[in-house]
């Protein structure tokens, strides 16, 4: 009986992993071909947040993205943060599935992960762009760190911090174990 229960739990975890990775693969495939109009569901609220936090104004340019003429800065589909959305969603699903008992709990985990990942993506991406804006204006560069490298590094730092905070909060809320068995 214990073996049956463990098997069911393992099968449930596998089903969640397959669903999460399948959704991630589909989203990644969609993103690789998406234009600005296709990702407005992420770009538009992100730009609103950036405008709210920085005071900068962005105009929507059809098929291109959002452009700030004052800062000469464009928020294009590559800045949409879809990769972060995929990472956050998969991390929550894969990392927390062991806390679920039963199908309903697993469905709730996937739905809550999608919502939390979307909300965190908006905040993380807006924070990344809001910080990138003054760096861009100042043309920040230090030694081997060219402006492009500074932009990349700043993005990785913001994304990792937000991902860590999201995951730490989620593990605390769900009471997940701090390690897992291979």
């Amino acid at each position, binding site marked *: 009986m*214990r*073996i049956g229960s*463990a*098997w069911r739990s*393992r099968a449930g975890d596998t089903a969640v992993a397959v669903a999460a990775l399948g959704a*991630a693969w589909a989203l*990644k495939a969609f993103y690789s071909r998406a234009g600005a109009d296709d990702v407005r569901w992420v770009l538009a609220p992100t730009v609103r947040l950036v405008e709210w936090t920085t005071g900068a104004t962005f105009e929507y340019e059809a098929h291109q993205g959002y452009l700030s003429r004052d800062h000469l800065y464009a928020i294009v589909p590559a800045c949409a943060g879809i*990769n972060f959305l*995929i*990472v*956050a969603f*998969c*991390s929550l699903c*894969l*990392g927390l599935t062991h806390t679920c008992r039963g199908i309903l709990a697993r469905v709730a985990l996937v739905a809550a992960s999608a919502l939390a990942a979307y909300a965190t993506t908006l905040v993380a991406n807006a924070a990344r762009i809001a910080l990138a804006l003054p760096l861009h204006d100042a043309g920040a560069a230090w030694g081997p760190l060219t402006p492009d*490298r500074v932009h*990349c*590094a700043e993005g*990785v*730092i913001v*994304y*990792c*911090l937000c*991902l*860590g905070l999201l*995951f730490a909060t989620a*593990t605390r809320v769900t009471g*997940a*174990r*701090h*390690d*897992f*068995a*291979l």
Partner: protein
Amino acid sequence: MISRSEPRSRRRVPLVLVPWIVYLGVTLVAPALNGAARSEAFAEHAIITLGISGAMTMLWLAAGRRPPRRRLDSTREVAPNGALGHRDTLAALNCSGDECSRDF
């Protein structure tokens, strides 16, 4: 008795590594498999991503393994014979937090 579903010596891996591995998978492995690895810009991106995310994950791991701070230090009342005072015992019992629960 150990059930067959839980082998005796299974290696434990910190959960913190899950988001890091997924992050590297999505930002480095997937593009590399799609041919991005041939460009010079990808190598730069990979070094920055691996270096920063790796350092931050190690910091996170180190913070998680930090020994818990005990309230005993701030309320220590030691009797002449070396025994801990009443307030000390209460502080130890009331000490909350995940880390402390392992100690008491």
